[in-house]
C-alpha cells in the first residue's frame, strides 16, 4: 500500500511538472516586408497585419473572413432602427452613439476609454500630423464625450459606413500623447518611438522585441478582451526575398506566411513541390483589380465605344490567366469584386459581357471605319491612321509584363499593333504621368479597393483629371457618364444597403455598356500554413488576416 502511494505521488509529481513545463507554443510567421511603422501614418500591408495583432486596426467593428462585421471594442453595432445611429437627411448630418466595452486596458495597464478616442481624433486632425488619409475623419464634426465609455460622434455629412466600418482615425493612448499634444509638439508625437519599437495597444499580443531587419517578437496578452490567445509567442520574420521565404516555409523554419508573402509564381511552385497534407497554400480572390485604362480623352479612336469593345472581344483573358496564373484566377468583367457586398445576382443579368471573339472584334473595328492595311495593321479608312497602340505597365512586375506580351499577340491577330513601353512604378504613377495622361493610349495597373469602396473616386465624372481641376482625380480613363455619376453621388449618401445594391446594379450596367476600361481580373491573396496550425482564416481584402489571431493554435 505504501509503495503504491509513493508511486502515486511520484506519478502526480511527474505529471504536474510535465503540465507546468508544457511546451510553450511558438508560431513563426514569414512576411515579405518589414513594417515601416504602426499607425495611421504608415500604409504597408505588413504593418497592418502586425499592427492588428498588437492593436486592432478596425477598432469599432472587425471584419471576419466572410466579410461579416462584429463589434470589437464596442458593445454593439449602431443602426438606424434602434436609434443608435441618427440620420438627419435634411441637414446632411448624422449622430452615431457608441458604448465601449468596459473591460479593456492598454498593454501597460491603463484603462481604454473615450479619452483615447478624443486624443486620437485630435492628433489625426492636426495639420502637421501626416496621416495617410484624413478623408473620413473630416466627416466627423466633433466627439461628444458622455463618460469614460460612452460617446457620440457628430458627422457633418451623410456617410453610409459610419456604423464603424470606417472610423477614419485610430484611438491613441491618451496617457502618452496628451502631454505633447497639449504642448502642440506634433513633431514629438510623429517621431515618438511608440509608432515603432515602443508600440503597444489593446490587442491579443504585446510587442516584446523588434529587431530591425530580422523579426518582431510578440507575447500573448492574457487579458485580451476577446479571449486569451492560445499561442504563447508569435514571431513575424521579415524575409524580403521570396525565394528565401519559400525555402523557409518548406523547411518549416517559419510555419506560416500571410500577406504580404510569396509572389504567385513561387506560391504555385511551392504548392507543387510540397505535400498538400503537410503544407496548405491558400489562394483567395482579393480586391485588387487589374485592368487596362484607355485614354478616351486624348486618343480619338478610343472615344468610339466600338473600338473599346473590339479590344475586349479580342482579349482572351482565359489564355492570359492560364499562362500567367495557371488558371487559378478567374477573369473579371467589371470593376467590382464578386465578393463585394454591393454586388448582387441581378447585376450579372443586366451587364454586358464581352466574350472572346476575334471575328466580332474585327467586325466592330470595320464598323468603326478601320480596315487592314497592306501591312496587316488596322488602318482608319478616312484618316489613314494606323492602330498602333502604346501600352505601359510597371516595369519589373513579371506577371503584368507577361500578360502584356500575351495581349500584344492577341491583338496582333485582329491587326492591332502594340508597343510596350514600361516604366518603374513611381514614374508610372507619377502625378505628371498617370493623372496628366502623359500615356498616349493604354496603361495596365491595378486599383486596390475595399469592401466599403463604391468606385466614386475612380468613375465619377468630377474625378476626371483636367487642367481646370489641377489634374486631380482618379478617373484617368476619362469616363464621362452623367447618369453613372449621379448614381455614385446617390450611393454615397444612401444608408440602406439594399438600395445601394440596386443603384450599383444600374451602375455596372452602364459601366459594362460603355466599357471605359478593359477589366482583366482580380488578384489573389496568398496565405500559407503548415497543417498543424489551425484557425487561420484570411479575409482576402484590406482588412487584416490576423483578425482572429488569438484563436490560432498549433497542434
Amino acid at each position, binding site marked *: 500500500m505504501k509503495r503504491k502511494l509513493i508511486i502515486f505521488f511520484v506519478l502526480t509529481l511527474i505529471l504536474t511538472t510535465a503540465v507546468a513545463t508544457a511546451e510553450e507554443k511558438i508560431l513563426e510567421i514569414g512576411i515579405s516586408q518589414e513594417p515601416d511603422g504602426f499607425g495611421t501614418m504608415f500604409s504597408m500591408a505588413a504593418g497592418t497585419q502586425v499592427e492588428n495583432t498588437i492593436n486592432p486596426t478596425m477598432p469599432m467593428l472587425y471584419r471576419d473572413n466572410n466579410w461579416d462585421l462584429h463589434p470589437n471594442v464596442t458593445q454593439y453595432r449602431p443602426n438606424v432602427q434602434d436609434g443608435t445611429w441618427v440620420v438627419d437627411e435634411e441637414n446632411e448630418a448624422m449622430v452615431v452613439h457608441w458604448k465601449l466595452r468596459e473591460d479593456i486596458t492598454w498593454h501597460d495597464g491603463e484603462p481604454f476609454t473615450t479619452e483615447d478616442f478624443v486624443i486620437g481624433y485630435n492628433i489625426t486632425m492636426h495639420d502637421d500630423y501626416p496621416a*495617410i*488619409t484624413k478623408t473620413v475623419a473630416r466627416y466627423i464634426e466633433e466627439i461628444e464625450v458622455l463618460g469614460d465609455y460612452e460617446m457620440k460622434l457628430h458627422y457633418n455629412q451623410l456617410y453610409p459606413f459610419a456604423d464603424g466600418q470606417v472610423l477614419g482615425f485610430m484611438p491613441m493612448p491618451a496617457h502618452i500623447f496628451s502631454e505633447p499634444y497639449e504642448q502642440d509638439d506634433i513633431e514629438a508625437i510623429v517621431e515618438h518611438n511608440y509608432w515603432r519599437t515602443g508600440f503597444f495597444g489593446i490587442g491579443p499580443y504585446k510587442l516584446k522585441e523588434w529587431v530591425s531587419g530580422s523579426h518582431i517578437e510578440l507575447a500573448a496578452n492574457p487579458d485580451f478582451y476577446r479571449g486569451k490567445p492560445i499561442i504563447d509567442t508569435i514571431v513575424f520574420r521579415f524575409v524580403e526575398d521570396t525565394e*528565401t521565404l519559400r525555402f523557409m516555409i518548406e523547411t518549416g523554419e517559419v510555419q506560416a506566411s500571410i500577406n504580404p508573402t510569396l509572389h504567385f509564381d513561387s506560391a504555385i511552385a511551392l504548392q507543387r513541390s510540397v505535400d498538400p497534407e503537410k503544407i496548405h497554400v491558400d489562394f483567395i480572390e482579393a480586391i485588387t483589380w487589374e485592368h487596362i485604362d484607355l485614354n478616351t480623352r486624348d486618343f480619338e479612336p478610343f472615344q468610339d465605344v466600338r473600338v473599346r469593345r473590339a479590344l475586349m472581344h479580342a482579349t482572351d483573358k482565359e489564355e492570359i490567366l492560364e499562362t500567367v496564373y495557371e488558371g487559378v484566377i478567374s477573369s473579371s468583367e467589371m470593376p467590382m469584386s464578386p465578393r463585394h457586398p454591393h454586388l448582387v445576382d441581378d447585376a450579372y443579368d443586366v451587364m454586358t459581357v464581352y466574350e472572346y471573339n476575334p471575328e466580332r472584334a474585327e467586325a466592330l473595328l470595320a464598323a468603326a471605319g478601320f480596315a487592314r492595311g497592306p501591312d496587316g495593321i488596322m488602318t482608319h479608312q478616312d484618316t489613314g491612321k494606323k492602330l498602333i497602340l502604346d501600352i505601359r505597365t510597371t516595369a519589373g512586375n513579371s506577371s503584368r509584363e507577361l500578360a502584356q506580351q500575351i495581349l500584344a499577340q492577341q491583338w496582333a491577330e485582329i491587326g492591332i499593333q502594340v508597343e510596350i513601353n514600361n516604366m518603374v*512604378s513611381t514614374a508610372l504613377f*507619377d502625378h505628371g504621368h498617370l493623372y496628366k495622361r502623359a500615356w498616349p493610349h493604354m496603361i495596365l*495597373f491595378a486599383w486596390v479597393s475595399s469592401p466599403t469602396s463604391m468606385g466614386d473616386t475612380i468613375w465619377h465624372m468630377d474625378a476626371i483629371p483636367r487642367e481646370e481641376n489641377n489634374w486631380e482625380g482618379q478617373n484617368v480613363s476619362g469616363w464621362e457618364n452623367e447618369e453613372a455619376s449621379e448614381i455614385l453621388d446617390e450611393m454615397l449618401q444612401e444608408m440602406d444597403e439594399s438600395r445601394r445594391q440596386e443603384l450599383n446594379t444600374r451602375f455596372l450596367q452602364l459601366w459594362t455598356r460603355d466599357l471605359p476600361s478593359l477589366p482583366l481580373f482580380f488578384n489573389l491573396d496568398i496565405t500559407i500554413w503548415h497543417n498543424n496550425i489551425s484557425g487561420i482564416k484570411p479575409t482576402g481584402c484590406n482588412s487584416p488576416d490576423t483578425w482572429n489571431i488569438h484563436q490560432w493554435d498549433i497542434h
Partner: protein
Amino acid sequence: MWVYVIRRILQVIPVLFLISLATFALLNAMPGDPLAELMMADPDMSEEDLANLRRIYGLDQPFQMRYLRWMEGVIFERDLGSSQQYKVPVTTLIARNVENTFYLVFSSFILSLFVAIPIGIYSALRQYSLADYFWTGFSFFGFSVPNHWLGLLLLFLFSVQLEWTPVGGFQSIRVPPDFFSQLLDRLHHLILPMITLGMSSLAGWMRYMRSTMLEVIREDYIRTARAKGIAERKIIYKHALRNAILPVITLVMMAIPMMLGGAVITEAVFVYPGMGRLFWHSLINQDNFVSMAIIMIIAVLVVLFNLLADILYAWIDPRIRYD
C-alpha cells in the same frame, strides 16, 4: 609634409559640398511621386490628403529651399533630415544598417587581406611553381567573376544544396545571449556574403602583391644583400617585403570605399539588411533624405580614404614633392 596634409584636407570640403549639391539635385530629378503611389494602395486616400502630406514633407517648397534647409540641419544640428517613409530621423534609421554593413565590409576586408598578402608573397617567391600557376589562375578567376553570380552560385551550393549556411538574413532568432554564440551565429550568416564581396579585391591584391614582390626582389639592393650573404629569410622579410607591401597598402586603402559600393549587390543577393539594401529601398520609395545620407556616407569615406592613400603614398615615396 604637414602643410601638404592640411591643404589636401581643406580641398576635401568643397568637394563634399559639391557632391551633396549634385546628389540632392539628382535625387530631386527622379521622376515619380512616392506619395501619389500611396493612392494606388489606399482606396480611402483623397487628393486633399495628398496635398496635405506634400505640405508636411515640404515637397511643395522649391528645390533650393529644401537643399538649404537640409544643409542647415546638417551643419548646425547634425541632423540628416527625417525619413519620409519611417517618420524617424535618418540617423536613427540608418544606424543599424550601417553597423551591419560595417561588419560585412570589415570582415571581408580582413579576409581578403589575410588571404591575399601571404599568398601573393608565396606565389612571387615560388614563381612558375604549380602553386604559383594555381594562384595566378585563381586571381584571374576572382578578378573576373561577377560577384552577384558568385553569390548566387555559393548560395545555391552551400545554402540550397548542402544546407550548411542560412539562405539570408544576418542573425537567427533566439540565439543564446552569450557573446560567443552570438558571434558564431553572426559569422554563420556572414560567411558567404563575406567571400562574395571580398573575392575581387582578394584577387586584385593577390596579383598586385605578387607583381610588386617580384619587382622588388629583382632590385639591385636585394641582389647586393644576397651578394653580402645575408640569410635569404632575412632578405625577404626584412628588406623585400617592407618595400613591396607599401604600395599594396595604398591600394588596399582605396578598396574600402569600393567595397562599400559593392555591398549593394552583395546585400541584394543575400538579402542582408545593410546600408546598400536600405539605399536601394529608399531609392525605389524615393525616401530622399535616406538615400542622400547613404550616398554622403560613402562619398565621405571615398574622399577620406583617397586622402589617406595619397598621404600614405607621399609618405612612402620620397620622390613625390609636396607642392
